[in-house]
């Protein structure tokens, strides 16, 4: 849990502060992406950075995800520390060869000689009424590939510390931001700090059930935990924070303690992050579990446009609350 801090920032401000601090600290850090400079991205996450660092370091690119991601890989290999901005996670498809066949492979294929210290920031998350090509949570795809690290911050505090760690990492790191969370406020220390990649955080301590949740679903899980408390169920919320490297130990420890586990992630469940996390818990805590591990994720449909339909596709506080009650045998 974060240290108590007076100052509060939004998730977007925490991201911006992490970038600004790292750019001041290291002149090799630069940002490349569509409308990252004067526009500060459509989400205004980067507002103000170009004024401080100039257009040589905050660089507007053409709409060429494969081109500027690939350029980032080569720049990272040769002395820069680029932070690539892919506006919507859905557009990762256009840059996948650069990430999967290039960035992820360079270090291994070269026998450890070349390194790719690059960060790719992008978004995930539905319920913004953006339809099927601007709403997906595709982080599982990247988790599948050895050579990449995948970060899923869920609070402003985590966002700042994890992004700074990602920028200092010597490997390609994919950093997913829930676009619905940019306005979420939380305590963020003004000082320099990093959070190690691969260390989970217990966001709420509990004893009856463990809610393992990632990114956007952490806030959902915390909301559900508050509802559960009212009916006498003590829920623990564990946030892996990075899906690779994965802090398997913390997940298993919590599962052994509470004996009931729901895994919640906004990506698709099939062959998805929840499948992997549930498997880790099942293998590590099988004999301590009272009930099978339950998974909750996006419904296996393209994300629909109509609010009446879209809201059905992702787990909510209420649906997690109901599922948790059921696992605990409470009507």
């Amino acid at each position: 849990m974060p240290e108590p801090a007076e100052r509060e920032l939004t998730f977007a401000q925490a991201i911006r502060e992490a970038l600004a601090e790292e750019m001041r600290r290291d002149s090799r850090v630069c940002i490349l992406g569509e409308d990252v400079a004067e526009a500060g991205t459509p989400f205004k996450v980067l507002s103000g950075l170009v004024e401080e660092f100039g257009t040589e370091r905050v660089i507007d690119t053409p709409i060429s995800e494969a081109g500027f991601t690939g350029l980032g890989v080569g720049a990272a290999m040769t002395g820069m520390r680029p932070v690539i901005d892919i506006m919507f996670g859905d557009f990762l498809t256009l840059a996948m060869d650069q990430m999967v066949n290039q960035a992820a492979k360079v270090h291994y294929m070269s026998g450890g000689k070349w390194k790719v210290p690059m960060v790719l920031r992008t978004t995930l998350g539905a319920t913004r009424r953006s339809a099927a090509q601007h709403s997906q949570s595709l982080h599982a795809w990247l988790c599948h590939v050895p050579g990449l690290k995948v970060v899923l911050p869920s609070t402003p505090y985590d966002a700042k510390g994890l992004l700074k760690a990602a920028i200092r990492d010597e490997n390609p790191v994919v950093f997913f931001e829930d676009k619905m969370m940019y306005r979420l406020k939380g305590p963020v220390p003004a000082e320099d700090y990093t959070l190690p990649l691969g260390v989970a955080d217990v966001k709420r301590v509990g004893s009856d059930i463990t809610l393992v949740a990632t990114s956007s679903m952490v806030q959902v899980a915390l909301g559900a935990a508050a509802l559960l408390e009212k009916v006498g169920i003590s829920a623990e919320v564990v946030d892996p924070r990075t899906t690779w490297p994965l802090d398997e130990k913390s997940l298993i420890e919590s599962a052994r303690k509470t004996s009931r586990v729901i895994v919640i992630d906004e990506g698709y469940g099939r062959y998805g992050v929840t499948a992997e996390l549930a498997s880790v818990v099942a293998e590590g805590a099988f004999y301590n579990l009272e009930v099978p591990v339950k998974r909750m994720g996006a419904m296996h449909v393209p994300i629909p446009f109509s609010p009446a339909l879209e809201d059905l596709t992702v787990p909510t506080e209420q649906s997690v609350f109901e599922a948790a009650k059921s696992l605990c045998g409470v009507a």
Partner: protein
Amino acid sequence: MTTATDRSESPMEVTSEKWLQMFRRMQMIRHFEEHVNDLYMRALMPGLAHLYTGEEAVAVGICEALQQDDYITSTHRGHGHCLAKGASPDRMFAELLGKEAGYCRGKGGSMHIADPATGNLGANAIVAGSAGIATGAAFSAKSLGKGRVAVCFFGEGALGQGVVYEVMNLAALWKLPAIYVCENNLYTEYTHFKETTAGDILERGRAFGVPSESVDGQDVRAVYAAATRLVELARRGQGPSFLLCNTYRYTGHHVGDINREHYRSKQEEQEWKTRRDPILLFAEWLVGEKIADAEALRKIETEIEAEMCAAVEFAIAAPYPEKSEVDQDIYA
């Protein structure tokens, strides 16, 4: 030291030593590839082998115009580029055989030779896969201001890939010191390039305002002259360029591609080998210019062959990586 100047192709002064160095490198590539073929046929080499034979003048002409710390990216048909940039044949063969002493400790193989010491960012088995990397190296070169340039080698088959145009657009917009070298060896695997490539190849570079020219890829002096000029442009901050090198792949797409008559005739192959061979043409010129006599050139060839034999022996005798290596180097 004698100095020869080719007025028609290269106005720059080139020392005899430099010309002979080019001859040596071309012979090195030719003999290296003959041994690769042999290793493959003897089932000593795992995987695939895409030979560069016939295209030697391109790699050598380009790389001789570069400094050691300039960058290159290469292709699945990359042995020639790596050797031309200064890779050592013994460690190349070791990599091809999957040995620990190889450039990538046996983890990359024939299609992935990489070597920071010679600026080789890596051969790449995705067609056009290194276009982004090379352009990124040019981006670093410009940002860090050390005067380096980056050469992106790719075959004409890569012209079908969109990423090539994305990065040429970026390089042109930002005046990056990148040289895009398209090796047109006429065949995209087993298909003639005319069946896969609409329009004029040079127009592709020109569309971005990138200086674009073509050169006889069998004439090492012409390639070297063009490369020297384009490298100089890049170093002076004038931005990227596109060089089309017209060449020919003597053998199949890979060593096992033996029956090629469904896509090209034996007569065509024979004509290139006898009339357009880059090594024969260069040797003729060297003798004509009295830079070396035939005997001296034969001596070079003999030395190269001895070096290749020793390199092969080294690689065959070298140990495989320890099993514990399998999950090392995934993360830095």
